């Protein structure tokens, strides 16, 4: 019997093997379609079922079907843009990991920069206000009070 630790380690190794390793082997990359190009295209597309996975990584059945569609289209000589358009026409911009710039995505693209600009403005305002406060220094009345307090202190210490 294997030691417990070894068995756990083997189980871990088995589970970490990519489950989709076999599916790319289903396709024939000796013809029109280059494997690297195909992989690049399906990695840029998002699976609708497991939403945090790309078409390349997902084992959902729809992802398998769409991988096959993409392969067929590439094999038929379609350009990357045509393939992306095909998917966007059916599933929307959601399938793109790199969403296009248009009014409905302005917030997505520019939001962070607007926030950063706002933060800079607030920071600039605060810093300027603080430094101005230091420059102004003390008023005449305050100076007199400081002087009297200081002299008071020395007198007390002497006595």
């Amino acid at each position: 019997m294997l030691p417990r630790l070894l068995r756990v380690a083997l189980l871990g190794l088995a589970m970490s093997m990519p489950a989709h390793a076999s599916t790319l082997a289903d396709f024939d990359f000796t013809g029109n379609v280059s494997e690297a190009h195909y992989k690049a295209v399906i990695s840029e597309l998002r699976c609708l079922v497991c939403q945090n996975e790309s078409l390349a990584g997902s084992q959902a059945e729809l992802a398998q079907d769409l991988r096959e569609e993409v392969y067929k289209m590439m094999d038929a000589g379609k350009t990357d843009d045509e393939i992306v358009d095909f998917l966007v026409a059916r599933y929307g911009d959601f399938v793109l990991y790199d969403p296009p710039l248009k009014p409905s995505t302005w917030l997505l693209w520019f939001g962070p920069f607007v926030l950063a600009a706002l933060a800079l403005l607030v920071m600039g305002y605060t810093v300027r206000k603080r430094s101005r406060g230091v420059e102004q220094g003390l008023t005449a009345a305050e100076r007199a009070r400081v002087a009297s307090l200081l002299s008071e202190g020395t007198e007390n210490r002497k006595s």
Partner: protein
Amino acid sequence: MKRPLLLIPAIVFTVMVVLLAVGLNLNPREVPSPLIGKPVPGFELSRLKDPQATLGSADLTGRVSLFNVWATWCVSCRAEHKLLMALAETGEVDIYGLNYKDDRDAALRWLQVYGDPYVANAFDDDGRVGIDWGVYGTPETFVIDGEGVIRHKVIGPLSADIVNERILPLVRQLNSRG
């Protein structure tokens, strides 16, 4: 208020809470369909019950109808089935079905056991027509107007609320329009 700037963190906090609350209540599974407002995708498939006959886009034009994507392996399809039956009984709208990546015998048994709310079903064996309809999670239900234009899409199982508040009012509105 003497120092209005002190209000800024409170305002930022409130805005964040509102945005996060809205975000949490959105359903990330509901991806808006680009097909809404467009004519139904062209297709022609064999019918589930009568494989010799076909069902296609032409059958979905002419009158307001629902197009329901389902399968026997889809658990939530079972959940919405009663509602489809009830809806079919009212006779308010024709329900067509797309039997998606299913087994023909299993699907026929399902309709026999649980009842058949459909006018007819298209049998989409390999899911190719499903892709053209942008199907990604069964069940899905499309509302199609008399001109064969997709007006609405429900992703996931129908509920009584969805039927009464979204589907039926839309069907009546489309019917009254012409």
